[in-house]
């Protein structure tokens, strides 16, 4: 019964986010709406953490499984890249790692900057 309730709550939040997506006048991903909605419901105590804990932890632990069917079907798409396969991968991977490092160090930079601003504020 417990798991059923928990799955029900999570599915309802998802259904709600799909509904909101349809009502919005602009295009916005339901996945982002869903995260925001669940965070808000938990924050406002509309849903309590213990009401979704076990199923939530199970889903968090096994998130990756939903990407497997997607991966299997893209094998067909590889044919569309004929002739440019190598360049395609180089651009994708190089950009990926560059963005990774830039993002990491940007966060660190802002954290340190704000730390210095807080320290200055405390001194004055």
């Amino acid at each position, binding site marked *: 019964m417990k798991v059923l309730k928990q799955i029900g709550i*999570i*599915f309802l939040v*998802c259904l709600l*986010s799909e509904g909101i997506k349809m009502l919005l006048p602009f*295009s916005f*991903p339901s*996945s*982002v709406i*869903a*995260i*925001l909605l*669940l*965070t808000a419901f*938990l*924050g406002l105590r509309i849903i309590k*953490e213990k009401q*979704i804990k076990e199923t*939530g932890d199970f*889903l*968090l632990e*096994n*998130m*990756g*499984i*939903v*990407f*497997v*069917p*997607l*991966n*299997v079907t*893209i094998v*067909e*798409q*590889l044919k*569309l*890249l004929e002739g*440019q396969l190598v*360049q*395609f*991968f180089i*651009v*994708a*991977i190089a*950009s*990926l*790692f560059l*963005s*990774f*490092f*830039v*993002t*990491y*160090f*940007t*966060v*660190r930079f*802002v*954290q340190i900057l*704000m730390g210095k601003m807080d320290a200055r504020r405390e001194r004055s």
Partner: protein
Amino acid sequence: MKELWANPLFGACLTIVTFALARMLNERLKTPLANPILIASLLCIGFLGILGIPVEDYQVGGAFIEMFLLPVTAILGLAVYRQREILKRDFFPVVIGCFVGSLTSIVSTMALGKLFRLDEVLTASLIPKSVTTAIAIDLSEQLGGLKGITIMSVIICGVCGAAFHPLLIKLFKLDNKVARGVAIGTTSHSAGTTSALQLGEIEGAISGVSMGIAGISAVIIALFL
């Protein structure tokens, strides 16, 4: 036999069994390169290929698993909620990091595309690669890319990120948990977040939030392209 392959239970079973095996392997080998998503996908592709089972038959059951894409993304809200104090403290570094990361991803893709003389349609399809699939597809259409190629780019980034980011983190001693989460979520969205969660709940939650913020950033940036 054909009826068995086209039975939704087959696709679902194959996915679940290969993923469970992949997780066991990952736990035993303890290296993020043994990424469960990658291993499970390769096992499925191998199984279907060896037995000559059409992908469409597998997909009947695969679609059932795909149905959990939204619930599995939504549940990141739980991870975010658990880390709310850290998020409040590091709000600006996270938001700025996401925006700069998205910008870097888009600009570097365009620049590298020109450098390697990549076909314009392929470049356009690659641009949204760092954001979550739903947003990526919308962006791709906007920019004149091909949906199928974009989905593939998103998956490549996701799986490569999930497999290699933890390695980069170890190699370059990138110790800050919040920064790790932002970097992973911004560049390799949900698939990367699965890896982030293995590093820690803070990294996982921040990665989940960053996914969303980076997605919104990409949409805004694309308005100016």
